């Protein structure tokens, strides 16, 4: 373990109870998913499938202007339309409902319906509640809004000098700069001074977004009799921070019950649908009817609070002439859009793995967060780390080029070695364990690099341009809570929470069947399946004897939910903890039944038996039956209470506080997965068209619970990375109008655009800190695909001498870049 960066950082001891094993019954199996039958037969219950009696429907009036004062709103004509129940302006809404939730500090105030001012095209200006969505939309057209247009700044490099009427939130100050701070981790100046070469590039990551096939929505019912809101929503984090919506609604948290529904994909966009919940609940209260609000696709593209990172980097690497990277220094401007719901979380996140898999000694980051007249950023698969992966890998390639080194070679020279873990990085986070060389070697072998290099040179003779990319990246997993606030100014840090647990409720019924309740939703990750596998493993039950369900916030416990690739690890921790309690109780009953000590017992294939005595055993079902119904058969002591149920809360396995001076951020994201991606592409320089010929992805996600579902995430994440790299952009024009606001203009890849076979490989370095050594792996595909594709394109077009330091690389953009150099 290296101590050289932060000598005073002690890594707490591992709380792991279940180590990795040689022989699992269920963990590691590519078991068919428990969730699938109902989804396949059209019986899944998504938010738009929810109907409650007397339900009305809402639609929102979207602002056509990017920046304007709301001078007046005339709703009288809209109210007259038959079938209209209520028409609500932002001012009206704000009488009962406060601003929606934000993690920014100082707060960037957002209302569910804009009050006084609109700040981006698509922002809600008014809402209609009507008998059906069709009528609601008719009524929107009858609302007359008088706007006074304000100027908008669209050049990312000019946003921090915006002033006067260009300022979006004048109450925060005469600036659109939300934050401007420098973080220095380690001896940056000295490292730059001793470098042989400084490599410098400007790199642009344009915004794309998750765009799941299902939009966000809610069904809210305000019970006037009890003053309680019941809200169905396809959100996550409802048991973690959902109560903050109650605060917005001006009621006690017990007066808001959030019921999760299946989500048709999220990729971060449904991490916390505070605005949707607050909006729909508030409307239901005003309208006096239950209200359903489902974003249509226009709402979702313009107004979803779910755009990805939008960054311009000026980046320097300090290197020695043998390719050793000493230090990195960057300035980044991040255009967050009109609000700042997650504070600087996407940069905090990036700090968890900012040096990548390399032994880089120091880091300096100058982060300028600016606000602009665009939909705000949310969480998108990678949450900002996919961008630093991209930038760092592009810098490694630029460095290799300047030094005349092979891209594989320069990575090998810098990779952290297996014996160096746990590895403390300059920003304070820890990489728990890994073997980056093994991942790289396996990927190279699967890809057959030398064969592709031959094909490349053969193709060039025929006037065709094939290129190869190779990247080596981190995929951190299991975020911790300090990330939400550790980048805020230490004098105004906001709410410095340090809990981000996961919980389950577990019971075994009288027939010996296990019933698990989750406090987190289904997103397309496979919570029911992985929980079934882990419970089956821990209790030696058959998966068919396990049922998994979801609880609402009334009955639920603190569960942070999926996101940051954390769910499988965290729920495994909760299950292990819960099973431990249940097992102890089972053994207590069984020991009495079999007249032995609890220490003599073991679980084996659904039986509780005496170790070493094969015929002295009872089934879990028999013991369960006795425990539920036959209290008098057991001693009159504690521990024999009827029944078998428990709840278990599992806290983040490894978090430490950042020091006040923030010269590091503590440990906050230590379960460190890793991947190597390789790609071969063919580029047509005359049209800019890119075809992906081959693709290999090797991931280390520690102990795998279900290799099949993990590979699904790797491929799906890679597909989204392909989208961000080559096809997708939320493009705003010079009036901050969104030009790509529908699926015809925003190009999500289809089956045609994918490589025929994304070959997935696995390496397992079990984490010392998590149950069974599991690491998260949901995001990694998207966190490596962009840099590998851009590198491959650059490699293909090497004869033209151009560099590519941006995404997306659409055919048009590739042609523009080639034309600049006379091609």
């Amino acid at each position, binding site marked *: 373990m290296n101590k050289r960066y932060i000598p005073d950082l002690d890594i707490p001891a591992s709380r792991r109870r279940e180590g990795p094993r040689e022989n699992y019954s269920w963990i590691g199996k*590519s078991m068919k998913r428990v969730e699938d*039958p109902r*989804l396949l037969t059209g019986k899944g219950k998504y938010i*738009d499938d929810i109907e409650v009696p007397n339900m009305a429907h809402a639609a929102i009036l979207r602002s056509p202007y990017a920046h304007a004062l709301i001078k007046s709103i005339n709703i009288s004509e809209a109210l007259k339309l038959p079938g209209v129940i209520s028409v609500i302006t932002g001012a009206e809404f704000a009488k009962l409902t406060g601003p929606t939730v934000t993690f920014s500090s100082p707060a960037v105030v957002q209302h569910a319906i804009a009050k006084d001012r609109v700040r981006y095209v698509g922002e809600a200006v008014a809402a209609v509640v009507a008998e059906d969505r*069709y009528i609601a939309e008719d009524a929107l057209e009858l609302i007359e809004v008088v706007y006074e247009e304000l100027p908008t700044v669209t050049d990312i490099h000019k946003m921090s000098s915006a002033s006067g009427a260009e300022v979006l939130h004048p109450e925060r100050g005469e600036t659109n700069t939300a934050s401007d701070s420098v973080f220095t981790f380690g001896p940056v100046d000295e490292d730059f001074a001793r470098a042989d070469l400084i490599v410098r590039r400007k790199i642009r990551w344009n915004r794309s977004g998750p765009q799941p096939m299902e939009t966000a929505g809610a069904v809210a019912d305000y019970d006037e009799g009890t003053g309680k809101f019941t809200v169905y929503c396809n959100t996550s984090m409802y048991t973690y921070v959902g109560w903050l919506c109650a605060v917005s609604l001006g009621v006690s948290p017990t007066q808001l019950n959030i019921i999760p529904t299946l989500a048709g*994909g999220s*990729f971060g966009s449904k991490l916390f649908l505070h605005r949707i919940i607050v909006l729909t609940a508030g409307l239901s209260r005003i309208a006096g009817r239950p209200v359903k609000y489902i974003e249509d696709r226009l709402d979702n593209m313009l107004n979803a609070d779910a755009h990805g990172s939008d960054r311009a980097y000026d980046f320097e690497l300090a290197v020695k002439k043998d390719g050793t990277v000493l230090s990195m220094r960057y300035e980044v401007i991040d255009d967050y859009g009109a609000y700042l719901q997650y504070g600087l979380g996407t940069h905090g996140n990036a700090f968890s793995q900012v040096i990548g898999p390399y032994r880089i000694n120091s880091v300096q980051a100058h982060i300028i967060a600016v606000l602009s007249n665009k939909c705000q950023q949310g969480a998108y698969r990678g949450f900002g780390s996919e961008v630093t992966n991209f930038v760092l890998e592009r810098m490694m390639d630029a460095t290799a080029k300047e030094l005349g080194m092979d891209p594989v070679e320069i990575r090998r020279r810098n990779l952290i070695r297996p014996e160096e873990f746990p590895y403390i990085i300059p920003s304070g986070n820890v990489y728990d364990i890994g073997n980056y060389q093994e991942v790289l070697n396996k990927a190279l072998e699967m890809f057959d690099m030398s064969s592709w290099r031959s094909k490349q040179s053969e193709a060039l003779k025929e006037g065709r341009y094939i290129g190869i990319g190779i990247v080596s990246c981190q995929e951190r997993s299991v975020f911790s809570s300090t990330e939400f606030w550790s980048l805020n100014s230490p004098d105004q840090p906001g709410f410095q929470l340090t809990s981000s647990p996961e919980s389950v409720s577990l019971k075994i019924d009288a027939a010996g069947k296990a019933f698990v309740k989750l406090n987190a939703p289904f997103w*397309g990750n496979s919570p029911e399946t992985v929980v079934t596998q882990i419970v089956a493993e821990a209790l030696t039950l058959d998966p068919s004897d396990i049922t998994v369900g979801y609880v609402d916030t009334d009955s639920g416990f603190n569960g942070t939910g999926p996101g940051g690739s954390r769910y499988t690890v965290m729920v495994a921790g909760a299950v292990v903890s819960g099973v431990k309690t249940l097992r102890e109780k089972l053994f207590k009953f069984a020991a009495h039944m079999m007249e032995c000590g609890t220490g003599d017992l073991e679980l084996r294939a659904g039986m509780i038996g005496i170790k070493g005595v094969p015929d002295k055993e009872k089934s879990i079902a028999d013991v369960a039956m006795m425990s539920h119904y036959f209290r008098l058969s057991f001693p009159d002591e504690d521990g024999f209470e009827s029944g078998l149920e428990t709840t278990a809360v599992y806290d983040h396995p490894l978090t430490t506080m950042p020091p006040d001076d923030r010269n590091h951020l503590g440990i906050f994201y230590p379960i460190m997965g890793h991947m190597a991606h390789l790609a071969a592409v063919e580029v047509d320089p005359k049209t800019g068209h890119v075809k992906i010929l081959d693709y290999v992805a090797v991931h280390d996600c520690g102990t795998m619970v279900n290799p099949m579902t993990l590979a699904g995430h790797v491929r799906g994440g890679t597909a989204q990375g392909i989208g961000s790299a080559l096809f997708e952009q939320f493009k705003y024009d010079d009036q901050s109008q969104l030009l790509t606001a529908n699926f015809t203009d925003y190009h999500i890849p*289809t089956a*045609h655009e994918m490589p025929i076979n994304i070959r997935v490989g696995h390496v397992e370095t079990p984490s010392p800190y998590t149950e069974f050594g599991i690491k998260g792996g949901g995001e990694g595909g998207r966190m490596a695909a962009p840099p590998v594709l851009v590198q491959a394109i650059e490699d293909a077009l090497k004869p033209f001498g151009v560099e590519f330091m941006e995404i997306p690389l659409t055919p048009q953009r590739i042609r523009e870049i080639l034309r600049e150099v006379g091609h």
Partner: protein
Amino acid sequence: MSNQFIEINLIVNGKSVQKNVSPRLLLVDFLRHDLHLTGTHVGCEHGVCGACNIDLDGKTARSCLLFAVQVDGAVINTVESLGTMSHMHPLQESFWEKHGLQCGFCTPGMLMSANELLKNNPNPTRDEVIEAISSNLCRCTGYQTIVDAVLSAAQEMKKNEVITS
């Protein structure tokens, strides 16, 4: 403003349906909210994503681009007609085997497109499967396991000589 209500008679998943509908009621809304067949999903309402694909008189069609009034006299099949939890269609079985879904939202539309393909072409190549599902957007899987599932179902169906309707 239209006050028309038009009676439509059609067959949906083998059952006769008679309803009065307003002309502008989209077929997908009719299926989901009037008939409570919520297996068909709404993803975009402008005919690009394919989550709303249904079978109209034997061919797939975007139900977000049809009005209920237009399908008077038609025979419609939705995902609910393919199979049930206890008796799944080979395509559903294959999707399950091959992990051809994650969130499940695009899945009904995918199944309808795949079903049409296999009816017309029981022995498709990989490229033909890709072409058949190329207008069904999936954000979760990257499509590869979906293609695997369709090819696997084709094999299964040839073995069993199942007649798909």
